[in-house]
């Protein structure tokens, strides 16, 4: 038994418990399987993922260029992300 979203004109109109044979018979071609929710397994992996995301956002050529040009908005945005990264690193060190 799995969870399926039932579609009508591309929009989800219901979410049901069923098997593949039932949804194909009742809603041919108008359904999609909902994957099992993968809940977070550890805070450590979440922190590492969050830091990776911050690195990806801040390490772009355009970001470096705008900082070099003194773009206050970009500098402020990066400073905010740096603060988040610092908090995450501190938390990671305590785990």
């Amino acid at each position, binding site marked *: 038994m799995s969870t399926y979203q039932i579609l009508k004109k591309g929009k989800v109109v*219901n979410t049901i*418990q*069923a098997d593949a044979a039932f949804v194909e018979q009742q809603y041919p071609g108008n359904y999609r399987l909902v994957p099992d929710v993968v809940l977070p397994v550890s805070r450590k992996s979440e922190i590492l993922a969050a830091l990776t995301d911050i690195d990806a956002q801040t390490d772009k050529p355009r970001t470096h260029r705008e900082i070099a040009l003194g773009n206050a908005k970009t500098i402020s945005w990066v400073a905010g992300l740096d603060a988040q990264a610092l908090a995450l690193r501190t938390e990671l060190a305590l785990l």
Partner: protein
Amino acid sequence: MRIISASSSGGSVSSGKSQQNLAIIFPASTTYAIPFDGWYRLSALAGGGSGAAIFYTTTGGAASGGGGGGFGESEIQFTAGTVVTIVIGAGGAAAASTVDGTGIAGTAGGNTTIAATGMTTITAVGGGAGAFSSTNAATAPGGAGGTCSGGTTVNSTGGDGGDATHPQNGGQAGGGGASGSPLGTGGDGGACNAAHSSGGGGAIGGFVGGAATGGGTTTAGGGAGTGGVGAAQSGNGTGGVNRLGIATVADADGITRNALTQAATTMVYGFPSLVDPFRSLTGGGSAGDASLSGGSGAGTGGGSSTGGGICGGGGGYGRASGAASVSANLIGGGSGGTATTGIGPATSGRGGNGLVTIERIG
């Protein structure tokens, strides 16, 4: 006099002209061919909505509970061979807040329908999703209870999820609403408005989960019972009484059914009777912060990581520290919200899945 023996559906309590079987339970969508001419009771329960989740280490946040699923029932005369199409609504998916300061709304439960030639389709609508907020003094409204239409004897709405108000700092989590039932509208989940507070889950029959109203310390409302509301107070509230008016989570037959694993003193979740199962739900609510689910049809107290059981609402889970995670609801009820100011994550339980029963009654 004609005595009819047990049918393919299992046990029989037949005598005279009619045959009355145990209810056949359908936890997944399917088609079912009516085996004999006769009268049948068809019961449809929708999926419960899931509560929201938020972890926010600086200010905390509020996460409301999911609404209970709608419930409907018809008594229909069928001829043998009639094909009944059963669609089972899924419980709303669990919400997981894994990024500090980013709340995640719950998900609405799916709709359950029963359709066949010669009857009006019963459509039980899933409970609504819980919401979140980290704004001071703002209230995240609980998910609305699902409605029902098409039932010839019962059309009951689920209880609303408990609202969660964010006073300033702290984690607040509303309880889940109970499903509708033959006893009428489901009870709402308990609300919360204090720092680190958790509302209790509602019970069938309109009994409301206890609100968490205290300030400064962790508070948790009691889960509602099938005979009374959950206690609302600034400490940990007591659970509502069972259908007999007794302060216990046990059902009316004296048996406690609120565990996932059989134990010496506790049986696993279930219906007290497979004859007219939805009218046999008679359990009491569990107390706040008791790490114990309510009995059948009853709500779970706030502050418990155990989910709601059969048709009862799950408790909210608001915490000042650490991760906050609640197990899934089982059948029909809305799950409570989850909130923490700790390191997270915060994860609400899944809403209870829908269910259909078909029972030959004559």
